[in-house]
C-alpha cells in the first residue's frame, strides 16, 4: 500500500478525531485568552494572558506540583504492586489462582469508584479501623495532611487493576521459554527475571505507568471525596472555576496548562525509559 493511499484511508478518521478532540481543545485555548468580568455571566472584551500569569504564583505552582507528585507516587506503587499480581495471574502453575487473580482485577475495575472511595474513607478515615496503619507514615489520622494518604489509597484503588491488567497482556506476550533458556545456561531465577524478563517487559511497564499517571493527574473524584478540602488537584481548581464561579477563561487556562505539562511529562518519561532500557 502506498503512503498516499494510506493517508487517504486514514483521512476520515483523522478528520473525525480533529473535530471531536481537537475542536474542543482549540475552543478551550481560545476561551483561556478572554478576560473575566466578576459577577457577570458574559466574557469581557479583548484578549489577555492574565489567567496564565496568575498560575505562575507559587501557590498555584504548588497545586500543579502536588497533582503530579501524588500521581507519580501512586503510579509507582501501582506498578510495584500490579507487576507481581499480573505475573502471578499469567505464570502461576495453579490455574485456580490465575483465574481468581484475573477475576479480582476485573471485579475491581467494574466496581463503582464512588463506592470504593467511601469505603476507603470508612476504613482508613481518622476513625476507621485501618487508620493506625495509615498513621505508620508518620501523620496523625486527624491531621489535614493525612488527607494525602487517603487520596493516595483512593487513587490506588482506581489505577492498580488497570495497571495489573495491562501487564497481564505484557507478560502473556513474553514466552516462558526465554527464562528456561537462561536457566539452562546457568542463570538463577532472579537473574533471569532481572536480565531477561524485566527488560523485555519494560515497554509495557512504562506504558502502564504512563496510563496510571494520566488517570491520577486527571482524577477529580478521589481528591474531592477524600481530600478533606485541603488536597486540591488541578482538576478541583478547574471545577471550581468552571462550575462554582463561572470563570471559564481561568478554568480553561488551567486546563491548557495541564495539557501541556502532561505532554511534557509523558514525553520526558518516555525518553528517559528509552534511554534506560534500549531496545
Amino acid at each position, binding site marked *: 500500500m502506498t503512503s498516499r493511499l494510506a493517508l487517504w484511508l486514514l483521512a476520515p478518521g483523522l478528520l473525525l478525531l480533529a473535530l471531536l478532540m481537537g475542536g474542543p481543545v482549540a475552543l478551550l485555548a481560545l476561551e483561556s485568552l478572554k478576560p*473575566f468580568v*466578576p*459577577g*457577570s*455571566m458574559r466574557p469581557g472584551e479583548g484578549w489577555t494572558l492574565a489567567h496564565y500569569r*496568575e498560575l505562575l*504564583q507559587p*501557590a*498555584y505552582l*504548588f*497545586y500543579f506540583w502536588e497533582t503530579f507528585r501524588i500521581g507519580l507516587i501512586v503510579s509507582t506503587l501501582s506498578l510495584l504492586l500490579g507487576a507481581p499480581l499480573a505475573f502471578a495471574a499469567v505464570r502461576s502453575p495453579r490455574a485456580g489462582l490465575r483465574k481468581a487473580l484475573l477475576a479480582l482485577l476485573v471485579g475491581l475495575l467494574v466496581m463503582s469508584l464512588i463506592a470504593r472511595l467511601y469505603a476507603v474513607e470508612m476504613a482508613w*478515615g*481518622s*476513625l476507621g479501623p485501618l487508620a493506625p496503619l495509615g498513621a505508620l507514615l508518620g501523620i496523625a489520622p*486527624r*491531621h*489535614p*495532611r493525612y488527607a494525602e494518604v487517603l487520596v493516595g489509597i483512593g487513587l490506588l484503588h482506581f489505577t492498580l487493576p488497570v495497571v495489573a491488567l495491562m501487564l497481564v497482556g505484557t507478560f502473556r506476550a513474553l514466552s516462558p521459554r526465554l527464562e528456561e533458556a537462561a536457566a539452562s545456561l546457568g542463570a538463577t531465577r532472579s537473574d533471569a527475571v532481572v536480565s531477561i524478563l524485566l527488560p523485555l517487559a519494560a515497554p509495557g511497564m512504562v506504558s502502564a505507568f504512563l496510563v496510571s499517571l494520566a488517570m491520577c493527574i486527571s482524577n477529580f473524584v478521589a481528591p*474531592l471525596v477524600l481530600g*478533606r*478540602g*485541603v*488536597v*486540591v488537584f488541578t482538576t478541583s*481548581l478547574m*471545577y*471550581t472555576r*468552571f*462550575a*462554582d*464561579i*463561572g*470563570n*471559564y477563561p481561568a478554568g480553561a487556562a488551567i486546563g491548557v496548562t495541564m495539557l501541556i505539562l502532561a505532554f511534557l511529562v509523558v514525553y520526558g518519561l518516555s525518553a528517559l525509559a528509552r534511554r534506560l532500557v534500549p531496545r
Partner: protein
Amino acid sequence: MARIIASPAVNRRALLGGLATMAGSGPVFAQPRGEQLLVVMWGAQWIEVSRPIGEEWMRATGDRIQWELHAGGAMAIVGRLRPLWPRVPQNLIAAWDPVFAAMMEAGWMEPVNETEMPALRDIPDAFFKKDAQGRKMTVPLSTAGAFWGYRTDLVTGPPIESIEQLLEPRFRGKLCVPVPVNLSGLLLVSLAMQRGGNERNIEPGWQFLKQLAERGQIGRVVANNSEMINAMSAGDLSVAFWNTGGWQAVRDRFPCRLLTRLPDNKGFLFNEGFAVMKGENANRVAAAKRFANHFATAPINTRYNMPLGSGPTNINSTPAPAIADIFYKPDELERFAYIPDYAYMSSQVDAWTRRWETEITPLVRRG
C-alpha cells in the same frame, strides 16, 4: 425462554391475563399526559422531602417530574447553564439569594405573579427577589440561615460564647468550614464582623481566618451539605459554620448548640426557593409555575420546611417547634441577625476563592 414459560409463576394463562390487564388499563400504552419537568434540587433532606411531594403531584396531575441534584454549591448551576443557554433543559431551580441575583443578572428567570400562582399572595413581599421593573422573580419557600454551632457531646470545657474562643488550643483540628464558593463567603463575613468588618470590609475576616488556619484549628474544608453532615457526624470535628439544613441533619443525630445569639457575632438570614426558568415551550413554563405554586401552598410549605429546619414563607404555614432556637423574634433581629448584600458578595466570590487558594489552603494543609 421455554424455561420461563414452564415456570409455575409465569404460565401462558397468567401471561395472557397480564397482557389483557395492561391493554385494558390504556395509559400504559397511550401517550402520557401532562408535561415533563426537570427540577433541580439539593441533596440530603431537600430531595428526601421533595420527592414524595413530587410523586403525589405526578399522580394528581399527570405531569412528570424528573429531579436533578445540585453538584457542589448551588452557584455551580449557573456555570453549568451558561454554555447551554437559551436551550437549558431545567424548568425549575431550587436556589438561594446570591444564586438568584446571578441568574437574574443573566436574564434567565421567568417573572411570577399571583394571578398564575395564587399561593404567592400568602408570602410576604419582602421575601421576593425583584427585577429592575419591580416584578417578582422568585418563589420563596424557606427562610433559612447560616450560623456557627457545635456538638455539645464533643466540646469539653466552657461553652462557646464568642467566636474568638475558636483560637483556643482545645479546638485544634476541630473546625469544619466551607470554601468561599459555598454560602457565598458568609464564613468570611462572619469572621470579619467579629473583628469590626463586614462584607464590604472583609480584610479583618481574612486576618482572623489566617490565624485559625495557622494554629491548625481548621480540620476540614467542605463544599456541600452532605460533606458537612458526614464530617460532623464522624466525630473527629466538633465546631462548624453551616446552614440550617445541614445543622438540622446533624441535630437530628447528635446534641448540638447553634450559636444564634452571640453577643459579639451574628447569624445570617437568607431565602431559599424556586426560580422558574424561561423556556420556548409555554406549556412547560406554565406547568413549572403550577408545580412551584404547589410547593408554596401552606400545607406543602409546612411539610417541606419541617424536616429542613427552615422557616416556612407562607404566612399560613406552621413552623417546626424544633427551630425555635434558630429563628429570631422581631425584637432579636437587629441584635443577633444580619442580612448581608448577597449580590455584592456573589461578585466577590471569584476574588475570595483565589485568595483562599493562595493564602488559606496552604496554611490549613500544614495543620
